[in-house]
């Protein structure tokens, strides 16, 4: 019961009101009759014979009081306590609110709605004195204080699905209570033993965008920016999919794909005919149960050539590769001509270390003669991380004769390739971006590799890319801009905070955010491009059980939905109202 004291007070107040109403009932009207002889005789006989007549008023008050008490009690939401429920069972209910819980089931409800319903039934059907702790896998509830079932129900209603990705089983306090986990089993969550897992999984069809990237087109292979859309079929059947791209200028692209179950296809989108600015990519398939990954956004960068200055004593590989890049305005200078004040977007130092480093980003090919070593294959070293510089760079056939010791590695340096003892590729983001290659081009077959121009293009892209992220995931987004105003795709203002010269906001769902600061305006797509979401059928609880209806406990017993006492009380009250109406009109009661 929600609040016994409140309910009792309500019932007492109702009874008082009824008593007062009966008390202040107006006196009966006087009617003149020709003679009351017969009436008097009749009443004398009735008074002798009828007990009901004496009890009429009492009966009427009694019915009214029962109705009032029942309704007052019902408003408090009481429960029937069966013999099983008479045992007080505290419980901790962990709700899986990861993104895949937004998948629709055949009944039209999401897995999350089923999960909430199951949790609600557990709470409502439990002993009134039991205490509950509601937790979630996204950390929305931080409190570890157990509450009454009604408070727990309130907490349950506050929970929502999170697309931020960092799902994990919450840290539990040492509590002697039943442990229930309600999930679809898709998210890789390690569940402790002795946990009753309740499945709300139901197979669903889904095709989604699992990757969306954009290339600036600086490499020799493309003169214009291109988009790469990876579409994945998470269904159990072959799906016909239409990929559509639309952007400013009214340009639309549609492409039909056929995808086998659990397969992905990458589609390349030529963005040349689109205007600069945001682009919307969509996938459409029949009976798609998870819509959050059906849309993604990207922003076509501004079309302008970047100025790259190569400082070298002569390197045909670099000169050739840079010359082939259509969107690069390339110039070569001797090491003696180096002037840090020259206007350029990027410096590339070939075996040259300037005394005064430039203020712009630099790509440095270090002098490999400093340290000799036997020829090593790339297999000895590993690629660390998924840095934009190495995107699409395949180094399987690379051989290196000489490596150099890194001149400078700080805690802020990121080793992209190699290891801490022999870093081969280092990226740094300090006051500027810089990439250091720990081997000379002459001492390796890297310039002969197809990956070389891609590496160069990636590096230049990365160095020239804005501080503003091209894509963000759901969750906390930091923009290196002070006091920016943020609007979502629907034009709604997004709440943001300013901290240390940065604007911070929360991307709670896939969207395209418009950032404004003064006259500047740019966009940040927040896409849900993640296999873990798109593969909605990869559930460890895939037993074919109908979602939300079966509770799998330790003993395998099924608990059925129980009728609520409050509805019973309301029903009885309605019946009594009908009875009162009948008895009143039959003049049985007053």
């Amino acid at each position, binding site marked *: 019961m929600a609040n016994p004291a409140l309910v009792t007070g309500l019932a007492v107040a109702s009874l008082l009101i009824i008593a007062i109403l009966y008390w202040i009932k107006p006196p009966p009207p006087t*009617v003149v*009759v*020709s*003679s*009351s*002889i*017969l009436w008097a005789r009749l009443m004398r006989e*009735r008074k002798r014979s009828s007990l009901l007549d004496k009890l009429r008023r009492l009966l009427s008050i009694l019915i009214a009081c029962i109705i009032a008490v029942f309704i007052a009690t019902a408003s408090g939401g009481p429960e029937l306590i069966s013999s099983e429920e008479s045992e007080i069972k505290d419980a901790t209910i962990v709700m899986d609110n990861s993104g895949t819980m937004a998948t629709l089931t055949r009944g039209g409800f999401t897995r999350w709605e089923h999960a909430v319903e199951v949790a609600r039934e557990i709470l409502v059907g439990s002993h009134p004195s039991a205490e509950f702790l509601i937790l979630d896998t996204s950390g929305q509830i931080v409190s570890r204080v157990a509450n009454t079932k009604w408070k727990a129900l309130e907490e349950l209603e506050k929970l929502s699905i999170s697309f931020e990705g960092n799902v994990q089983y919450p840290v539990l306090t040492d509590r002697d209570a039943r442990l229930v986990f309600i999930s679809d089993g898709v998210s890789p969550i390690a569940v402790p033993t002795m946990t009753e897992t309740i499945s709300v999984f139901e197979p669903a069809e889904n095709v989604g965008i699992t990757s969306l990237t954009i290339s600036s087109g600086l490499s020799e292979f493309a003169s214009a920016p291109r988009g790469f859309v990876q579409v994945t079929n998470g269904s159990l059947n072959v799906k016909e999919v239409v990929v559509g791209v639309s952007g400013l200028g009214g340009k639309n692209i549609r492409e039909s794909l056929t995808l086998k179950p659990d397969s992905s296809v990458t589609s390349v989108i030529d963005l040349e005919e689109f205007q600069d600015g945001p682009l919307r990519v969509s996938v459409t398939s029949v009976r798609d149960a998870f819509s959050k990954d059906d849309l993604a956004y990207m922003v076509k960068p501004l079309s302008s050539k970047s100025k790259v200055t190569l400082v070298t004593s002569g390197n045909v590989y670099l000169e050739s590769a840079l010359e082939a890049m259509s969107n690069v305005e390339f110039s070569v200078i001797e090491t003696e001509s180096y002037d840090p004040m020259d206007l350029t977007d990027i410096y590339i130092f070939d075996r040259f270390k300037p005394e005064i480093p430039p203020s712009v980003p630099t790509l440095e090919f270090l002098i490999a003669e400093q340290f000799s070593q036997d020829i090593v294959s790339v297999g000895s070293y590993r690629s660390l991380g998924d840095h934009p510089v190495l995107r699409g760079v395949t180094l399987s056939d690379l051989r290196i004769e000489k490596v150099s010791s890194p001149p400078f590695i700080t805690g802020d340096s990121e080793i992209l390739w190699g290891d801490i003892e022999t870093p081969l590729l280092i990226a740094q983001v300090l006051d500027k971006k810089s990439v250091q290659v720990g081997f000379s081009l002459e001492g390796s077959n890297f310039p002969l590799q197809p990956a070389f121009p891609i590496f160069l293009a990636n590096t230049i892209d990365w160095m020239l890319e804005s501080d503003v992220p091209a894509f963000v995931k759901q969750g906390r987004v930091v923009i290196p801009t002070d006091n920016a105003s943020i609007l979502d795709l629907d034009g709604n203002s997004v709440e943001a905070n300013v901290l240390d010269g940065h604007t911070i906001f929360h991307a709670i769902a896939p969207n395209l955010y418009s950032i404004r600061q003064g006259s500047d305006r740019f966009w940040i797509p927040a896409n849900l491009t993640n296999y873990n979401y798109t593969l909605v059928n990869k559930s460890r609880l895939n037993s074919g059980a109908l979602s939300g209806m079966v509770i799998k406990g330790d003993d395998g017993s099924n608990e059925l939905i129980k009728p609520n006492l409050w509805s019973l009380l309301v029903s009885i009250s309605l019946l009594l109202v009908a009875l009162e109406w009948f008895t009143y009109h039959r*003049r049985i009661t*007053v």
Partner: protein
Amino acid sequence: MKFQNPKNEHLSMERANTLFDDEFLKKLEYLNLISKQMVPGHLHGEHRSKKKTNSGIEFSDYREYVSGEDTRNVDWRTFLRLDKLLLRTFEEEADLPIYIFIDSSASMDYGNPSKFDYARKIAAAMCYVGLMNQDRVNLIGFNSGVDKQLSARRGKNQVWNTFQFLEAMTTRGSTSMVRSFKGFFSSRRRRGLVVVISDFLDPSGFERAFDMLRHYRQDLFAVHLYETEEREPKLPDEVLLKDSELGTIERVKITPSLMDSYRELFDAHSKSIEVYCKKNGWGYINTSTVTPFEDLVLQVFRQGRFLK
């Protein structure tokens, strides 16, 4: 229609908005005609008395001669033939006194039209036919006693007086038939037909009063009037019932079963009067005020007690 008043003045009865208007008088005429057809020959005006006399025109019967009697009526021819002294008796021809008692208690002033108006119309009709039939008609208004009376009248020229008397009657007081009958019949009255037009809502009951009439060897015709609403009252759930005669107040909680019981009691009350009358060979008629009064009067005539 013109009637002659006692001062031989012709008084027009064309009066509107009164109890006995022209329409009413036309109905009386009609009733009178109907009554002639119902009982042929009654217009000779005299009613046969049960009393047998030694003189008269119409032979009735023989009876044995008792010593000391007048021998003038001995049938000598029969004596010669049968050797028995027999006297010839004749029926006494006498006019029948009709005592019309009209309940003028407060309870009669109920309904629309009121029971009292209805009773007066019935009384007027009876008077009219009785007077036309050369009967001696007495009109008595009673409540807790004899309130008002018009002594015996006879002949057509008394119609005006009886109507005037009826119109002048008013309702008041409670009902006591015992006191009324006692008050009226305590002075010597001839045997006749007593017509009581009343609702019979007498706190002391009707039995004692009727017993008194039997004691005085009167013939009774009871006309029991009631208002429809008296039998089927429309009352709220709880009501204070005020008695129009006694002013007493009865608190009643109305229920369907109570209403059923009341109706049963009401019908039982009527039935008890009817049973009593039939047991004594008297006439009884029970009617609501919604019944056209002429229909009721015809019904009275059909019972054969009023017209002989």
